[in-house]
């Protein structure tokens, strides 16, 4: 049969309401579905990320004191030193460190820095204290430069504390007139971000206080999820912090045993405290739980949207077939074969779906641009849109098939019925 496009398009232009519903439905579904899939893809990439640490062997220990003696910092410092010794002495402990850093906690401490001597660009970077066993506890080694020592952590703590315990004189621009210079270890990802040649060792960073950070080491792999995209950027500096927070790495297969003995060891050092332990795998699950929920929810949204759109097309096409029963009978009387009727409805639906897809593609990019500008969503991959278009075409055709087949079976004798 000659191309049906012309008459169908002309007929559709005279039935804008019905046509618009399908077009809009398809367009909105395509735009939302491909962006949902894109978000799921982003989330899956995040979920697939590895910290680079020996997560399965790590235990986070947080201690809260109720003994008033802990109100005195020197007393707390002495207990911390004993705690670290006690933890390292426990059988089954591969390494233990005092640090606030907990992999997969989904946040932490951060600072804004820039390359010393410049003012821009600025970089947001995670910052954590480290001692002589921080990297060993994480199961990583310093790839370039040097590691810290426990003695260095203690002496640095005392040095920085001495400076910051008093009001620091500042110049008109707010920077301390006697800046603190600390040595730091940064992640490779940050080195690549901050320095064009990727070489960070021997270079210095600066913050808004005017304090400087000399890079003495680089670690290869670091990842900690964060509220914004600084998950791979970190600097560690040598110090012992004020809180009783430890990270313990168990020897292979010893984690569960350690979980039973860690708190006893710490309470033996000082019983005036409450000890809370979490495995890093639990923290990771907790952290990723939200993303897993989002993935499942978006998956549900996609399924529901496609399902509702398919139902909508089935409903509208069914109504359209029922409404045009007599017209179909007339077409059959005039010589249309059953396949002509089937083709008519499928072509009509294909055209509407295609219009919807064209509009939906534009909407998808528009929606994606809004998501990219307001969140960490990535740009929409054209291949994703192509797949979405394919799915919508198939959905459109399959949804119209059953009503079209019903239309195909309408008898030509309907044409002569006058009621």
């Amino acid at each position, binding site marked *: *049969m*000659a191309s*049906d496009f*012309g*008459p169908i398009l*002309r*007929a*559709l232009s*005279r*039935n804008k309401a019905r046509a618009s519903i399908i077009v809009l439905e398809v367009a909105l579904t395509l735009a939302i579905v491909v962006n949902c899939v894109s978000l799921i893809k982003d989330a899956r990439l995040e979920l697939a990320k590895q910290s680079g640490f020996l997560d399965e062997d790590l235990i986070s220990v947080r201690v809260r004191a109720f003994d008033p003696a802990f109100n005195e910092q020197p007393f707390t410092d002495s207990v911390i030193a004993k705690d670290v010794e006690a933890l390292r002495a426990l059988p089954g402990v591969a390494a233990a460190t005092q640090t606030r850093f907990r992999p997969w906690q989904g946040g932490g401490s951060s600072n804004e820095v820039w390359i010393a001597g410049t003012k821009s660009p600025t970089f947001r970077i995670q910052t954590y204290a480290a001692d002589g066993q921080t990297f060993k506890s994480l199961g990583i080694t310093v790839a370039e430069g040097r590691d810290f020592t426990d003695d260095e952590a203690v002496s640095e703590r005392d040095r920085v504390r001495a400076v910051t315990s008093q009001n620091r004189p500042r110049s008109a621009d707010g920077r301390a007139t006697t800046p603190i210079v600390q040595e730091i270890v940064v992640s490779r990802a940050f080195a690549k971000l901050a320095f064009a040649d990727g070489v960070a060792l021997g270079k210095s960073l600066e913050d808004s206080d005017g304090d400087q950070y000399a890079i003495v080491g680089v670690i290869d792999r670091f990842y900690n999820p964060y509220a914004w995209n600084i998950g791979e950027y970190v600097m560690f500096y040598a110090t012992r912090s004020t809180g009783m927070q430890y990270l313990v790495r168990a020897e292979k297969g010893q984690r569960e045993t350690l979980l039973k003995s860690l708190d006893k060891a710490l309470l033996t050092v000082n019983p005036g405290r409450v000890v809370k332990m979490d495995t890093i795998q639990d923290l990771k699950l907790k952290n990723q739980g939200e993303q897993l929920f989002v993935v499942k929810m978006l998956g549900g949204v996609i399924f529901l949207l496609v399902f509702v759109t398919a139902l909508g097309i089935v409903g509208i096409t069914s109504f359209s077939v029922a409404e045009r029963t*007599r*017209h179909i009978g*007339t*077409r*059959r*009387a*005039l*010589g*249309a*074969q*059953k396949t*002509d009727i089937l083709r008519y409805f499928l072509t009509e639906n294909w055209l509407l779906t295609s219009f919807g897809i064209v509009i939906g593609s534009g909407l998808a990019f528009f929606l994606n641009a809004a998501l990219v500008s307001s969140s960490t969503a990535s740009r929409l991959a054209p291949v994703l849109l192509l797949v979405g278009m394919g799915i919508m075409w198939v959905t459109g055709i399959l949804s119209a098939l059953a009503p079209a087949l019903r239309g195909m079976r309408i*008898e*030509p*004798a309907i*044409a*002569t*019925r*006058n009621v």
Partner: protein
Amino acid sequence: MLKMTGIRKVYRTDLVETHALDDVTLDVKAGEFVAVMGRSGSGKTTFLNVAGLLDTFDGGTYTLDGMDVSRLSDATMSRTRNEKIGFIFQSFNLIPDLDVFDNVDLPLRYRRMTAKERKERILSAVEKVGLSSRLHHLPSQLSGGQQQRVAIARVLAGDPRLILADEPTGNLDTLMAREVMELLLKINEQGATIVMVTHTPECAARAQRAIHLLDGRVVDGDSHFGHLRSVPTGALAAAI
């Protein structure tokens, strides 16, 4: 042109068996204008459906333009309808979303004609019914008489061997009905065979002969309108 012998059509439900056509025998020659009359329920529409290959039948033989159409597949029936039969319906049966051009184009599209040939035929047919100026009007923008003329143009464009008209003036006022009848007569004079179902004696009188159906049977297979009027009583009178 149209030869039916012993045609039977039975509608069955669980409880009732209705003989819509019962041993109908009819021979319409090429170029004839035959009126089929009968009251409501007499089998006129069933006769039209069977004659127009819109419906199958249960017994008898039917030859259309020399072709035995007793047992055809659905596809062949569609093709035969398209090529040999033109329909004029009481309710015009135009597609409301299509303009005059596209409505007349419909049967030609199903015949897989080229766009050029279709256009020539459409313009010629629409001109013959005097609606050239309304080519891109929708049915809703036309009067009843004009819509029926579009339906006639649709038939003319297909150039069928047989035209089946189902109460073609049933929905028209007197003036328009007369116009349509004149058009049909003109078409018949040009050689087309027309079988027209009607319950209006005035319309039937314009045909060359009339046959009368009663309870699915032909009760008078060869009456001219004058003969019809001369039968005042009995079944035939009731049929009228």
